[in-house]
């Protein structure tokens, strides 16, 4: 099952230097934490689209996401929340889909080349569901055990790491086969499906779990491709 609030709640707050200068014309605001994978998912989409936005820091260490006024933005108490003019949303993968559609003609296209074709869109949609159901629960547990716990001085449980790595290996075997046929997970172009993986992949690259990527040539190439994108670099700062 998902580690729900755990990962989010232990990321450090950002200093105020990391705020972007608010632009009066910018209707886009992200309420989140720049170190959190789900916030990063949204930031990636915004950077890919070269969109102006304001990042309003939510201090996870202080539990700001579990109190008002944040709870009015997301009653489930999770970052990020999002605003574009009068539209208010939460859930990172709903936000990225909105950005990809609403700003389709701007910046990188995050939808399939023939996005109006429901069959093509469905292939990307499958990949997004696979990321959410097969990849993320396992990969997030590995980040929790090996990154978060270390960060707050708890001991990694290697038995859990071994168990979760075995599950992730099976998922990545399917990805390896897929990426032998296509350059990216949903086809020949970079889409939301690939983007949604990036924040957690980046954290795993700093752990021994990285070997699961390097052992699989096509997965390894794909990881290198998606993490070297300028937007992927921007979210690490």
């Amino acid at each position, binding site marked *: *099952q*998902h580690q*729900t609030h755990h990962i989010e709640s232990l990321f450090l707050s950002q200093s105020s230097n990391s705020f972007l200068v608010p632009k009066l014309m910018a209707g886009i605001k992200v309420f989140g934490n720049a170190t959190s994978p789900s916030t990063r998912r949204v930031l990636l989409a915004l950077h890919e689209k070269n969109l102006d936005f304001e990042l309003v820091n939510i201090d996870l260490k202080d539990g700001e996401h579990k109190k008002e006024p944040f709870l009015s933005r997301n*009653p*489930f108490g999770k970052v990020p929340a999002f605003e574009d003019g009068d*539209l208010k*949303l*939460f*859930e*990172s*993968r*709903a*936000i990225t*889909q*909105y950005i990809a*559609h*609403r700003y389709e003609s701007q910046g990188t296209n995050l939808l399939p080349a023939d996005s109006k074709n*429901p*069959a093509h*869109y*469905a292939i990307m*949609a*499958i990949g*997004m*569901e*696979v990321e*959410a*159901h*097969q990849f993320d629960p396992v990969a997030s547990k590995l980040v929790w055990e090996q990154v978060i716990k270390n960060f707050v001085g708890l001991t990694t449980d290697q038995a859990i790491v071994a168990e979760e790595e075995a599950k992730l290996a099976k*998922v990545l075997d*399917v990805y390896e*086969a*897929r990426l032998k046929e296509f350059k990216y997970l949903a086809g020949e172009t970079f889409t939301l499906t690939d983007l949604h993986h990036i924040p957690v992949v980046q954290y795993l690259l700093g752990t021994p779990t990285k070997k699961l990527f390097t052992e699989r040539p096509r997965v390894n190439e794909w990881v290198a491709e998606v993490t070297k994108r300028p937007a992927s670099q921007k979210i690490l700062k």
Partner: protein
Amino acid sequence: MEDQKMKLHCGFIFSNWTAMFGLHEKSLDFELVFVDWVAGEARTKTFLSNLNPFGQVPVLEDGDLKLFESKAITRYLAEQYKDVGTDLLPNDAKERAIVSMWMEIDTNQFLPLASTLIRELVTKPYQGLATDFTSVQENKEKLSEVLNIYEARLGESCYLAGESFTLADLHHLPPIHYMLKMEEEGVKDLIYSRPNVTAWVEKMQSRPAWLKTVIKGDHIFELMKQHRMPMQLDSPCQEMTGLAQKTAMVTENT
């Protein structure tokens, strides 16, 4: 465009009902192919290479297109067959974003809890495995908190994403249907103690497409209970043939 009929590879799990529900809302004809995943039928080489490399049902075949993941399937049906049957997705980008958001809430907040209850209280007993009642209690408590948010939301609008029934609502009904069948104390109450949630569920349960789904779904469940004792996994082929024949009879008659 006279395609052959769509095929839905379907088994004993509520996400299959979701796919059937979507097909019925769209008044689409389909052939139901029963997959006994509990007996390992979704892990055969054929299934993994032809249908779903993750070894899960449901899988929808529409001509050459093969789709898995129930939310990808229903979204495809909503868009490909937009002009047929119920309109399940709004056109406007902002309205659609709200539908997507409630589908994500289903995936991330509601379903992990509801599906654990279903696994512990329905699937595991069926497989002859022991229920973890600590897990059941934990998930009931968390689900209660989540449903408080749904109760507030459904006080603001008839359906989750606004005044019309959409994919966001559709996806919730099958797991709720299973929850309402549970004998375990307090599970039904999670729904019935909340008037807005109850009204929403009852509205959806009276939809003709849902009534058709329940008939098929319940019949499959009954067939499975009759034909497979949890410990009897010796001759899956014979059982599968028997079940497949019965299932074909069901789909022809409904």
